[in-house]
């Protein structure tokens, strides 16, 4: 909400500047988004009247005007605006005036015609957006009046009001709070409240849950004069469009008190006004020109003809106040916030009244009505009925008990009972014998803890001494899981991988059937929860290839989601890896041309849980877009897969001409972490002090023999001295010159060691012989050492 400081001054006597007041309000809990100075008095800008207007001889879009600025001699002004007529009063900047934006006015020629000043728009004078074209003044404006006298300088504060304080949606509420926080003195207007009377022929309530209290003031003999300029100006601050005097005053008083009001044209109402829920099939043609199909959950104000207003939200066109109205029924009521909120949401309407009622406003229900009646009587000579017709019960003020120790205990602050009483009294609460009486404008206060909050606000949290209370907290299961996941992340970063974080909402077509779909997605591209991390990583890969990255090593560790029987949804952490491009950074060495491939990729996956990762062949049909897959096991548990994208699928991610293998993996994080938790690979055991002996052998086998089967045979041969097998050269010769084209040469490095003694060359030689023989018979291999 925006508030004008000059207007606020009607209810707050203060010496604070706009900035100081902003600080005070911030301290009280009203956030001040901005402070803007308006209508600064610019010298040499005066009210003037257009005496005549002729077409500019040399420019179609310009006219030449004679303007009376009160000096006695008309001035000639060239003007481009079109929104005026001869006789209008406008604002004229005289030669020598300096307008905002460093515009200096001087006598000069425009397309050959002399112009002795400039007629101005609202914007040019810093008076706000205003209309397109000249700012037209009211006809009663005195010619020659200085701008500063017409538009006194003002500061506009933009406030952000929390939903618990509807009273702050009125000037009185803001002034009362500012005064309580030391800005000055609260000036409450004299209300002259009328006596009340119940009359079933005027107003009745059928549904008291929707409307506990309803009131009508009848005002007759209204002359619908134009709204005075002060009223129009104040409404302009609130960005409210002037409509007619009655509506403008009702709006004005709403901004003043926070109590929304509605005026019915008394001559168009038949029978009593009744507050009830709408009936099947009822409609309302509202003041916004739209017709609303009413639901049984909509609270309405109806007369004998049917609904005349959507209660607390918007009035009906049929009984609306027009220029011809001379008698009104002025409504002021309390409506149930939930009912109002429901109707606002259901019909998709936003109105100032609805905004206040859905926040539970009950500030100034009686006062606002009396205020409009008094202003109308003053401005039009109308006569308000002596009595206010009421229905229902005005809510009794709440009484809340509060003990000083409750306050001190929750706030952890030393303060006396007297201090506490003082704070609450400042806020306008009344101390009764055993409890505090809550003022009508504070619907947010209904428990003792709410009063403690009030004390904390006025006391100020700065005045409370900070305390550091810590007690030991054993690490939780979640702590352990987090640490394991961070370990995986750090291993990947150490291996040259970058972590990506992508959104969990994805398009329907990339997720599988088990994906969980939103009821109200924001768009097709974010319609379901991801069942895999790969689609996100593919997008990141593609983005980075487009940005010119030559080597991409990505991972993401995040949640995936899928439907399951019970519970309804499974959420688990998944780890995906993806690589493509150069294997080593480009350098002046000659070894920088190789592309990242499946073996680089497996090497990284191995490092996630060293010594525990192994692979088995894929047995099902490959999913679309993949050309090779291996199942990954961590210890004995299936953890996921690694694979290569099909070259066609990979090309879709690449720029034209790029052709790199894209390796991918997706692994179940819990499977990896389980093994890390068991200390997998971390048991040190005994470090033998006796040297190892290494023997290299080479064998020639059929090309089709898988390397793993060679290793398998060697390691399961029960050679107790053999510690490890490492392949160090794989060689094929398609030309068949060095070895047959259907054969491959595999060189292996065998490491032998004993924990308790030094090996002899003889025993290693014998072991090596046995292993070579084994290979020879198992694979029909040609073996040499």
């Amino acid at each position, binding site marked *: 909400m925006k508030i004008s400081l000059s207007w606020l001054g009607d209810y707050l006597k203060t010496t604070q500047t706009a900035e100081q007041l902003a600080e005070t309000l*911030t301290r009280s*809990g009203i*956030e001040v988004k901005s402070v803007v100075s308006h209508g600064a008095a610019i010298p040499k800008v005066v009210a003037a009247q257009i005496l005549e207007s002729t077409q500019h001889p040399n420019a179609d879009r310009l006219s030449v005007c004679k303007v009376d600025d009160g000096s006695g001699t008309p001035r000639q002004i060239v003007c481009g605006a079109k929104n005026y007529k001869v006789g209008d009063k406008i604002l004229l900047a005289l030669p020598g005036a300096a307008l905002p934006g460093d515009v200096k006015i001087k006598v000069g020629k425009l397309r050959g015609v002399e112009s002795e000043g400039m007629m101005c728009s609202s914007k040019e004078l810093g008076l706000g957006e205003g209309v397109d074209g000249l700012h037209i003044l009211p006809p009663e404006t005195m010619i020659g009046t200085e701008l500063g006298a017409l538009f006194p300088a003002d500061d506009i504060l933009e406030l952000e009001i*929390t*939903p*618990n*304080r509807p009273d702050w949606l009125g000037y009185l509420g803001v002034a009362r709070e500012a005064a309580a926080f030391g800005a000055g003195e609260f000036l409450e207007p004299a209300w002259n409240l009328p006596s009340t009377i119940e009359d079933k022929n005027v107003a009745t309530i059928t549904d008291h849950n929707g409307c506990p209290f309803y009131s009508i003031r009848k005002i007759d003999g209204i002359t619908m004069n134009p709204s005075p300029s002060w009223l129009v100006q104040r409404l302009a601050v609130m960005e409210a469009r002037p409509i007619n005097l009655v509506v403008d005053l009702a709006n004005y008083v709403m901004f003043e008190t926070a109590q929304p009001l509605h005026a019915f044209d008394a001559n168009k109402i038949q029978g009593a006004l009744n507050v009830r829920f709408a009936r099947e099939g009822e409609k309302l043609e509202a003041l916004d020109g739209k017709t609303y199909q009413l639901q049984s959950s909509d609270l309405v104000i109806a007369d004998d003809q049917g609904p005349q207003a959507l209660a607390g939200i918007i009035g009906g066109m049929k009984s609306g106040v027009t220029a011809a109205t001379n008698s009104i029924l002025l409504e002021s009521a309390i409506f149930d916030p*939930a009912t109002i*909120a*429901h109707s606002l949401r259901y019909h998709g309407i936003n109105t100032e009244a609805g905004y206040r009622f859905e926040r539970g406003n009950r500030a100034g229900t009686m006062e606002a009505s009396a205020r409009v009646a008094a202003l109308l009587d003053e401005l039009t000579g109308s006569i308000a009925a002596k009595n206010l017709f009421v229905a229902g019960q005005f809510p009794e003020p709440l009484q809340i008990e509060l003990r000083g120790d409750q306050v001190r*205990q929750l706030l*952890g*602050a030393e303060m006396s009972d007297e201090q506490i009483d003082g704070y609450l009294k400042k806020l306008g609460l009344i101390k009764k014998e055993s409890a505090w009486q809550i003022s009508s404008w504070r619907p947010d206060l209904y428990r003792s803890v709410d009063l403690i*909050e009030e004390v*904390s*606000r006025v006391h100020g*949290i700065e005045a*409370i001494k*900070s*305390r*550091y*209370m810590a*007690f030991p*907290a054993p690490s*939780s299961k*979640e*702590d352990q*899981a*987090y640490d394991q996941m*961070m370990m995986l992340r750090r291993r990947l*970063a150490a*291996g*040259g*991988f*970058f*972590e990506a*974080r*992508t959104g*969990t*909402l994805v398009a329907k077509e990339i997720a599988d059937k088990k994906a969980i*779909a*939103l*009821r*109200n*997605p924001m768009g097709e591209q974010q319609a379901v*929860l991801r069942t895999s991390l790969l689609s996100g990583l593919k997008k*990141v890969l593609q983005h*980075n290839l487009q*940005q010119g*990255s030559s080597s*991409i090593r*990505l991972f993401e560790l995040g949640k995936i*989601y899928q439907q399951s029987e019970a519970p*309804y*949804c499974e*959420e688990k952490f998944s780890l995906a890896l993806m690589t493509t491009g150069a294997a*080593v*950074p480009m*350098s*002046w060495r000659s070894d920088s041309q190789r592309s990242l491939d499946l073996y680089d990729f497996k090497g990284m996956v191995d490092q996630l849980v060293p010594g525990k990762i192994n692979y088995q062949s894929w047995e099902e049909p490959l999913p679309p877009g993949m050309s090779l897959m291996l199942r990954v096991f961590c210890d004995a548990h299936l953890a996921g897969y690694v694979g290569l994208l099909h070259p066609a699928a990979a090309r879709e991610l690449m720029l034209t001409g790029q052709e790199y293998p894209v390796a991918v993996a997706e692994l179940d994080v819990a499977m990896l972490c389980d093994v890390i938790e068991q200390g997998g690979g971390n048991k040190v055991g005994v470090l033998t002090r006796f040297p190892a002996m290494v023997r290299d052998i080479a064998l020639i086998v059929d090309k089709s023999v898988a390397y793993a089967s060679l290793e398998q045979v060697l390691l399961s041969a029960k050679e107790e001295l053999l510690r490890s097998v490492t392949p160090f050269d794989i060689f094929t010769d398609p030309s068949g010159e060095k070895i047959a084209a259907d054969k491959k040469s595999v060189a292996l490095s065998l490491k032998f060691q004993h924990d308790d003694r030094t090996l002899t060359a003889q025993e290693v030689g014998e072991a090596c012989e046995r292993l070579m023989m084994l290979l020879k018979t198992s694979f029909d291999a040609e073996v040499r050492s």
Partner: protein
Amino acid sequence: MNIEIDQLRQKALATLEASSDEASLKELRVHYLGKAGAISQLSEGMRHLSKEERPVVGKLLNELRTSFTEALEAKEAVLVLAADAAVFQSLDPSLPGTATWQGGLHPLTLLTDRVIQIFRRLGFALATGPDIDTEWRCFDALNTPAHHPARNDQDTFYFPDGRLLRTQTSTVQIRAMEQAPPPLRIIAPGSAYRRDEIDATHLSQFTQMEVLCVAPGITLADLKGTAEFFYRELFGPEIECRFRPHFFPFTEPSFEIDVRSSLLSNKWLELAGCGMVDPAVFEAINKKRGDNAYDPDKVSGFAFGFGLERLVMILTGTSDIRMLTENDLRFLERFV
């Protein structure tokens, strides 16, 4: 014999003088000093000498062996030095170093980790909860009225069965209290979702950190101390914290925390919402638990929550939140 020794010395030293490579030095060593080398052969001849002559000749032969060995080794040392020097001469130290690939963690992960480590110092343990949760945990148990605007379809993502994507990590507060009685001291980082249009400062999926402490005797002073400790650890000791009264349905009193530092723009930055847990939240939990473990007359607590993306942006000078989801490697490389 003396003459022979002398001749051998002269010849050996002359040959040594003429040799300049490693191979010929090796050959010289074998030729003169080897088991069957020239000096050994001369020693053989000592058998024919008299008892008196032997020690004299032996001494001469020893001197020859020693002096030649020294000369040979000196020459070898010169060659090694020259070879070593040649190794360095072949280097061009001005060539750039050849790097290995570096990787790195996402800045949001790094910041989350820093935040977690700070709270661990204060004795907080991690807690988690699912992204998909019930309306009860996300709103009702957090004292949010049924007609609250945040609950409608325009602001919150719903599933057909009425569950939702949590709009705040405060659902974990509820889960933690459902599961365990006080005392409770938890932090919970995680994703939250709101139906906001994505722009430079908004994402529809973002990351929050939830902090909850419930125990007998917890006061607003503890909340203030904890928040100040956290921001001083994160931004440095020179920061100022301001607690601005605010409103949240689930805390009473409620505050927003603003932080100002000369190291960061020197403007008040709105960073977190916090407050003392509203008794209505405890009552909802008790009802669900079927006990009175969270009796508002016996325990109290504070909660606070904040967006992690905003902290990353402030600490790294990132102006557009979308850079955090784009994962451009040039951006990620800054955080290696």
